[in-house]
């Protein structure tokens, strides 16, 4: 069973973020592997290990000047990566990205595609299902557990108040939530092996994609500073912290006045 995991290199979410002059997320700093993608890589590795055959490969879109983030997913155990990188794709929207990834993945025809439910930089969260539709595959979304039984994938799909058990026949796109598994740490051996694993960088022309169809179709009208509430009182606890909170809750009438 061959599994493709869609991964993305993103600006470090812990670092200060800003928009560039074209209202796009500034991606000029160092990029790292989106932590949300490590769960998909781990699930893929476990499924292939359970099957005892097949391989895990990676597909990504974005700047390929530095592929350290991609290599960190290879170090976990994926065997190779395809990165679609093209200046024409700057600012591509989710549907365009889905078309690009669909074209790249079509060359591999895997049995299963794994994605995070959403990236940690854009949070659009529609790409995996767009990708499924472009390939005419079922999508099992928001999965907290994934098993393959014969030619059927069965997942626990998160709901507002629990989960549904949902199944579909391979090939399938599955989106996994963070926390679904414990992503393995790359071993020294894995890190060394990853250095020699192929990272195939391709452009739009290599995928025979129609560039006119990649033109984004929404405009950013404005970026405004949101009205935010100013910080209220801040009290450094010297043993009276709890009492201060109780007094505050009385003041806003969440709890009624003194017990005495």
């Amino acid at each position, binding site marked *: 069973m061959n599994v493709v995991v869609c991964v993305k290199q993103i600006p470090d*979410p812990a670092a200060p973020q800003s*928009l560039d002059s074209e209202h796009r997320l500034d991606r000029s700093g160092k990029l790292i592997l989106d932590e949300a993608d490590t769960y998909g890589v781990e699930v893929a590795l476990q499924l292939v290990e359970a099957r005892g055959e097949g391989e895990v490969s990676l597909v990504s879109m974005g700047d390929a000047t530095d592929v350290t983030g991609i290599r960190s997913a290879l170090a976990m155990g994926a065997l190779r990566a395809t990165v679609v990188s093209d200046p024409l794709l700057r600012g591509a*929207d*989710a*549907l365009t990205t889905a078309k690009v990834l669909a074209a790249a993945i079509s060359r591999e025809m895997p049995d299963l595609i794994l994605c995070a439910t959403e990236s*940690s930089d854009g*949070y*659009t*969260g*529609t*790409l*995996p*299902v767009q990708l499924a*539709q*472009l390939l005419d*595959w*079922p*999508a*099992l*979304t*928001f999965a907290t557990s994934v098993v393959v039984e014969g030619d059927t994938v069965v997942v*626990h*799909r*998160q709901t*507002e*108040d*629990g989960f*549904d058990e*949902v199944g*579909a*026949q391979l090939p399938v796109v599955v989106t996994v*939530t963070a*926390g679904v598994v414990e992503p393995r740490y790359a071993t020294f051996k894995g890190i060394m092996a990853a250095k020699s694993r192929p990272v195939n960088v391709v452009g739009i022309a290599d995928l025979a994609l129609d560039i006119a169809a990649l033109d*984004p*179709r*929404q*405009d*950013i*009208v404005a*970026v*405004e*500073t*949101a009205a*935010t*509430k100013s*910080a*209220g*009182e*801040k*009290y*450094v*606890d010297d043993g009276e*912290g*709890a009492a*201060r*909170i*109780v007094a*505050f809750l009385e003041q806003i009438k*969440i*709890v009624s006045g003194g017990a005495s």
Partner: protein
Amino acid sequence: MSVSNLWVIAEPSGTGITSTSKELISEARRLGASVTAVSWGPHAASVAADVGAYGAQRLLHLGDLGAVLPGSVVAATLATLLNNESPEAVLIPASNDGRDIAGRLSAMLDAPVLTNVTGLRAGASLETEHPIFGGRQTVVARFRANGPGLIVVRAKSFVAEASSDGVAHIEDVSPTPSSTRAAMIRATHVEEHSGPALEDASVVVSGGRGLGDAASYEMVQELARLLHGAPGASRAIVDAGWVPYSHQVGQTGKTVKPDLYIACGISGATQHMVGMKGSSVIVAINKDPDAPIFSISDFGVVGDVHTVLPALIAALKLRS
């Protein structure tokens, strides 16, 4: 130009529709549009009463879809219907099924989709508001192309307001068979919980990584119980497996707007803030005086949750 015609995906829940669906219908009506709701499931008549009460004139109803995961078939049917009609936009709740429908429909129509929307503006054209960087800035966007814009709206972006006792006119629609192999729901598991639901509670007490370990979350539950509220959590401790996802507040979890939100050991990552910054009053307890959560708190205590929470719980128990 004002907005004349909007469609809203009215997601079924029980015998009616979800609260986010009600919020979207209410807002579509406020924008002055004629509102068409699209829904499915076994309860067409009571759904028609629900969507009518919040302001839809018309209900396109696909009937009972059985155990099929609705994304593909609802999107395929919408794509067929949109061949003949051209609303300015389709408003879709940012639920799991709503996001499935939006993604499918986007690819079927070759139309972009705008997600994480928390506000709508009817100016020269319909514009959408998207909070970024934890809500510090708002991006305003609009569709460049003609044809219906697909807009995925976060829960609690608008107030649901019943406007009439009108019942929407039901038009039965035969589902368009989707060419995609179906995903089937085999079983449903509901987690038991006591007390108010997180998204409806007037008080929410949430815990984060500052709790140190899973066992300390019991203090958060206890405090929530004493205040007749619901316990919530940051993504960090859900990912760590301390509490189930259904407790998660934030970008990838639930949006809450309680009268009082108490953040315990939560630093205030943008991912979390976007889900709770609309709370009326915010109280934060955190060891780090520079934690971003204090910047939006009405009352903050710089201190250790392991000393402040037990004292707070003891003080409140004396009063109950």
